[in-house]
């Protein structure tokens, strides 16, 4: 220890504006000077480690003793297994940590140490050796003397970039018109989501909200397999989901050309927010505002889905409705604009 302090003293520049106070006098800990304290600390640390082992064993006991599954054991309304496993394992780890820290603080060496900073650069002689060996390498490989090898090597390295570039093709193919179209077609029924039940206008009351889907998602092909399933179903659903609401017809102010898009105050809109595509169905029936739960975009469905508030930049797309021969609500056509968030080609 004394070596280090003298080292500091000798390296001190003479013209330092404020004299270096040096290290303060070392003060020993109680455990350094008192044998009883040292023994006590030793027992304390051993107790921490011992407790840790005890909790590790309790973990095993808890693992086997508590019922999980359908009718789990409970402690204060919490699942007993999770609670005790977490507590015992957590305490076992924590007590090892506390024991180790106590050991370091109370018993391990406690001397003050100074390590002076060194310049980051290598010494000049090391640098000279590195440069000369590099030059020797250039000379011995003959890269300057043999341009054929040099150039062919550069070409090989350049060609290695081609597989990378060609691999980028797998990022495609470009979606084409997929973003602009949904599965909605003229005459396709609107059905209640989950149940797939078709809807008659008479069943829809003022103030009603229906979370709907196109009927095609609930239809099977000739072999009894669903027409849409798996990833394909989710992709189609992500664009075609709709909500239907009914307001008093006199409250609705349809835009030009949309006068016949509703049936007695029943209007249908895309369920996909035009901001970043969250499913949107917080319908305040008295204010006829539709709120998006993600970023609070607010649309006025009585006013053609106009944006009232929030980050959405486009009105909510509306699906024109009509009634088929059997009296069920069907679409007049697909949405006449892309649903969901804006994208590059949409302009």
């Amino acid at each position, binding site marked *: 220890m004394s070596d280090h302090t003298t080292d500091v003293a000798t390296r001190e520049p003479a013209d330092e504006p404020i004299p270096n106070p040096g290290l303060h006098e070392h003060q020993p800990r*109680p455990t350094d000077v008192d044998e009883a304290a040292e023994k006590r600390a030793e027992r304390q640390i051993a107790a921490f480690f011992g407790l840790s082992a005890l909790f590790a064993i309790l973990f095993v006991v808890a693992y086997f003793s508590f019922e999980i599954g359908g009718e789990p054991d409970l402690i204060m309304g919490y699942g007993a297994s999770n609670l005790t496993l977490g507590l015992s394992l957590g305490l076992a780890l924590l007590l090892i940590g506390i024991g180790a820290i106590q050991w370091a603080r*109370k018993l391990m060496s406690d001397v003050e140490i100074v390590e002076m900073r060194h310049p980051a650069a290598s010494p000049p002689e090391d640098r000279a050796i590195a440069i000369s060996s590099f030059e020797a390498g250039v000379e011995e490989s003959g890269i300057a003397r043999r341009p054929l090898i040099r150039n062919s090597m550069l070409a090989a390295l350049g060609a290695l970039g081609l597989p990378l570039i060609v691999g980028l093709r797998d990022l495609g193919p470009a979606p084409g018109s997929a973003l602009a179209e949904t599965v909605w077609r003229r005459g396709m029924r609107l059905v209640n989501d*989950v*149940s797939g039940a078709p*809807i008659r206008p008479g069943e829809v*009351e003022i103030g009603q909200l229906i*979370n709907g889907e196109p009927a095609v998602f609930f239809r099977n092909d000739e072999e009894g397999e669903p027409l849409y399933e798996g990833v394909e179903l989710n992709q189609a659903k992500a664009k075609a989901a709709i909500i239907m*609401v009914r307001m008093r017809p006199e409250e609705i102010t349809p835009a030009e050309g949309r006068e016949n898009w509703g049936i007695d105050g029943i209007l249908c809109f895309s369920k996909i927010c035009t901001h970043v595509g969250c499913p949107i169905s917080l319908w305040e029936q008295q*204010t006829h505002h539709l709120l998006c739960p993600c970023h609070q975009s*607010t649309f006025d469905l009585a006013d053609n889905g106009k944006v009232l508030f929030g980050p959405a930049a486009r009105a909510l797309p509306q699906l024109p409705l009509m009634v088929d021969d059997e009296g069920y609500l069907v679409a007049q056509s697909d949405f006449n604009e892309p649903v969901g968030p804006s994208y590059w080609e949409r302009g």
Partner: protein
Amino acid sequence: MRLLTARLSTRLSRGRRGKYAGSVVMLLGLLVTGGAYAVLAPAQASDEAAAQSTVDDGRALFLIGCASCHGKNGEGISTQAGTQYGPPLAGVGAAAVDFQVGTGRMPLARPGVQAPVKDVVYTDAEIESLAAFVASLGAGPAIPEQDAYDPLAIPEDELNEAIVRGGQFFRTNCTACHNFAGAGGALSYGKYAPALDGVTPKHIYEALITGPQQMPVFSDGVLKPEEKRDIIAYLESVEASPDYGGSSLGSIGPVSEGIAGWLVGIGTLVGFCVWIASSSTRSKKGKP
């Protein structure tokens, strides 16, 4: 046997030509008709009278407790600005009254963006009277039968299936406002969707068919009664399920969990670091 009937008919036909026969038959006919009326008709009349008196009781209660906002005949009151002070009640139905008054939302303590749940101020009989009066104003949804909303009516072996289906309907139609665990959530301008724990199955069903305040209507034609009951069964199963992983922190998602993680979790770790770095006690006894 034949002899008996023959003699009886002889005697009867002899009496038929008697002097008083016409009057006796007439009297008998009147008595039978009157007796039958006495047995059958007044029962119906007294039912009607009882129903009418329930409506009258309801009207009396309505005039005291409700008419100041909803108008003396439930026609609604508009402010000068054209907004509704109290909405018209014709056609809202008995179910709406049972929900609004039965949960303490009505009568309102003061006008506001939303009627909060309060202590119920009317007795069950008074609520029934009010509901009967409001139902008499115009046809609307009636108070549902117990079998329609009570998950106990679902057969034991179909209960799990019903809960799963109810969960799908709940997540599709309800979670946007009421949160995935039914913990409720905020709407715009101080309005909110209330938490669903502790709400009785009847009131949930009534809210679905009447659409109180900002809540949309989910009519029986579109969301079938048994589908509504499935939703209620799901909510009850959510309420009954224990917090397996410890405190749910209100089930309001990443915000409360994030706050707990940052403040409690990281706070504890920082506390440990401070403790580790703090200088330990030193002895004044001098160097060893």
